[in-house]
């Protein structure tokens, strides 16, 4: 495949821009930088007008190329990160249910959080993990973290760091081993959950840092699920929420809420209706709703603008594609 000079230049500009943005992120060069409101509105308006123009060209018989679709999606997810436009987030009942469960817990209650995802799903699940842990800390609940996915405990450690920074807590305010603990990863999928039903210690001899289970003040009296007041599962696949419901909820009566990727969330609805899952945060929107109800705005609310913009762009291209389809006749196919 031969590349045109223009494409090479665009790729180079994007690569340099990405490296600069990454360096800027880790060095804090552009922290707090946002577009002024007039510029944000101008960008949104221009994007909208250009899509109308593409629709007109499609009606005239000139089809949109695939790389144009890619370019617009890139713009839709990147530029809104620097925009500040008003958005109203309504909290749904299934998200509020998770908050209500936390609200009902007494300070010092034990909350088990399982991080069953990896960095691939982190953009969607990490904001809700941070929001959930921040809310637990705010309510003086103690948090026991673990993972059925190998990279889960690392995501847990990152979530705690971020929640501590957001709440302004130091290591003295929330003490590791007393207020929270990271038990790490254990192989065995749903069998880990099953054995935790009789003994946590049989599955986690030490925590993530290598401290023996019996030496950790927070869990030394935690034998099994009967010592857990509430559980929250963050999952993006197998093993995940379904396995926790089938083993921990059904067999041991664990009270559980869940946070899932937007793709996985629809499969969890039957468990929400049957009250096996007490509340559900679905995708970025679920995270944003949870941040709204807790009054602790974080990344999820910030990411809703790019998501809204991207959804609008996708809808726009679906309409354009259908216009082309009906214009060319139902039997023709687009060469995108």
């Amino acid at each position: 495949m031969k590349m045109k000079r223009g494409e090479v230049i665009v790729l180079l500009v994007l690569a340099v821009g990405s490296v600069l943005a990454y360096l800027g992120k880790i060095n804090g060069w552009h922290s707090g930088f946002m577009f002024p409101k007039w510029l944000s509105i101008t960008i949104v308006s221009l994007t909208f007008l250009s899509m109308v123009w593409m629709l007109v060209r499609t009606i005239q018989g000139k089809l949109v190329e695939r790389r144009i679709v890619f370019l617009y999606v890139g713009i839709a997810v990147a530029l809104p990160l620097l925009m500040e436009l008003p958005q109203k987030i309504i909290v749904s009942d299934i998200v509020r249910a998770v908050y209500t469960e936390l609200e009902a817990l007494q300070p010092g209650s034990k909350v088990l959080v399982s991080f069953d995802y990896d960095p691939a799903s982190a953009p969607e699940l990490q904001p809700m993990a941070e929001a959930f842990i921040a809310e637990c800390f705010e309510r003086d609940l103690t948090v026991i973290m673990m993972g059925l996915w190998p990279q889960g405990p690392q995501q847990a450690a990152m979530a705690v760091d971020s929640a501590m920074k957001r709440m302004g807590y130091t290591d003295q305010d929330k003490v590791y081993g007393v207020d929270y603990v990271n038990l790490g990863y254990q192989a065995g999928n749903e069998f880990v959950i099953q054995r935790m039903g009789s003994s946590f210690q049989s599955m986690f001899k030490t925590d993530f840092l290598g401290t023996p289970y019996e030496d950790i003040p927070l869990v030394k009296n935690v034998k099994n699920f009967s010592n857990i007041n509430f559980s929250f599962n963050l999952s993006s696949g197998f093993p995940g929420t379904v396995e926790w419901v089938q083993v921990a909820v059904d067999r041991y009566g664990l009270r559980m809420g869940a946070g899932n990727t937007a793709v996985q969330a629809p499969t969890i609805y039957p468990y929400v209706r049957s009250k096996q899952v007490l509340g559900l945060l679905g995708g970025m929107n679920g995270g944003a709703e949870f941040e709204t109800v807790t009054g602790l705005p974080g990344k999820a609310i910030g990411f809703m603008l790019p998501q809204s913009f991207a959804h609008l762009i996708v809808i726009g291209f679906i309409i354009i594609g259908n216009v082309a389809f009906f214009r060319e006749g139902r039997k023709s196919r687009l060469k995108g």
Partner: protein
Amino acid sequence: MKRQIPLLITFFVGTLLIISVFVPPLGDLERDFTLFFDIIAVFAFFLGGGNLLRIHLMKLANRRKDWGFSAVTVSGFLFMLAIGLFKVGNPGGIAEAVDAEGSWFKVMFDNVINPLQSTMYSLLAFFVASASYRAFRAKNREATMLLIAAFIILLGRTPLGVMLTGWIPEWMSVAQIPNLAVWIMNSPNLAGQRAIMIGISLGVIATSLRLILGVERSYLGGDSD
């Protein structure tokens, strides 16, 4: 004998574990068998790692097409394995956690694995948009219904839905896009998901019975005789 012994083991273990669910004194058996599973699962790690090395080293040795990618895979695998096992760069040495602050493992995880995996997943957005543009067509009544449901969910799962239909009065709130999205998820989606779940469960029961009774023998390898 080569086939009959595994079939007997499957029948015995399968039947015993089903009985143990209904007979409380046998409940401990289930716990013991899950421990066996854990032990076997550990060997799968060695098998997986060994297999990965074997395939890619053979590709490298024979200089087969795209052998460069295999070189990257093998070196990445061995490098992460080494820094994880020997805890290279850990301030507290071998006794401290594998991802302690300053360890090479943590540096690699935070700056290579994390952004790379997130990038791979994020690329989906581009392909979903492109595929929707090219293939999401109102070809017939069913496809049109799917298209309308997709629009409602896409708008209803963002603040856009509120912005577009928030003006609709309370007595007509059912027509607001976020409420329509909730209805789609709570009713048609729920019904479909339940149907799929029940179907899968019945399939699992049937397959399990076939395995226990020795009707299904493909797991033994070779022909099923």
